[in-house]
């Protein structure tokens, strides 16, 4: 049973460029969340996608956008990269089901982005 997969594992970009990160959720999961983890910090919520729609967004600028495909995979796009966007980007998947208190999120290994 494949877990959450992300690509690429590492990426180097320069300021002002654009980047696209990809995520495939765990088998049976239909919801994808994206988090940014800066060095020495905990993960910070960027947004969540369900049924190909952005369901909730954290405190991130519009330069961060996403997409979810019919097969539940997702992309995170970041435009006009800043040095401060250097971080580990984590994708988490979950399965939306009724009657449970919380849908546990399972994380992928992340994509490490370095902006020079």
């Amino acid at each position, binding site marked *: 049973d494949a877990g959450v997969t992300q690509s690429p594992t590492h990426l180097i970009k320069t300021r002002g460029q654009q980047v696209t990160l990809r995520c495939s959720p765990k088998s049976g999961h239909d919801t994808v*969340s994206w988090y940014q983890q800066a060095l020495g910090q*905990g993960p910070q*919520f960027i947004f969540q996608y369900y049924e190909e729609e952005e369901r909730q967004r954290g405190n991130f600028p519009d330069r961060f956008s996403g997409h979810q495909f019919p097969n539940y995979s997702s992309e995170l796009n970041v435009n006009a990269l800043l040095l401060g966007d250097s971080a580990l980007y*984590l994708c988490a998947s979950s399965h939306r089901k009724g009657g449970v208190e*919380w*849908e*546990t*999120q399972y*994380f992928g*290994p992340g994509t490490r982005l370095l902006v020079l």
Partner: protein
Amino acid sequence: DQQVKQNSPSLSVQEGRISILNCDYTNSMFDYFLWYKKYPAEGPTFLISISSIKDKNEDGRFTVFLNKSAKHLSLHIVPSQPGDSAVYFCAATHTGAGSYQLTFGKGTKLSVIP
């Protein structure tokens, strides 16, 4: 404004002894709490969770305690094993309608010494 705080950046424990990792939160709307473990070059792995209607939840060697009045939770690992050496993140959420995000602390690096 950090809503979830893990005030100990690191902790060292002897193999076989108890590890206690602490977490405090400030947002009184949080009603569900989780612990994740993270090894280098891997994503966080879900360990254990607790709802605010409980004060304790056990899963094998791992027990989470919740003190709502103090807005404090702790993770106990007994006995500690060298394979437990990792960064542990406390996370919290509000399970009310329309909230799907986890708020994380900065993590505590646990080192279990053989």
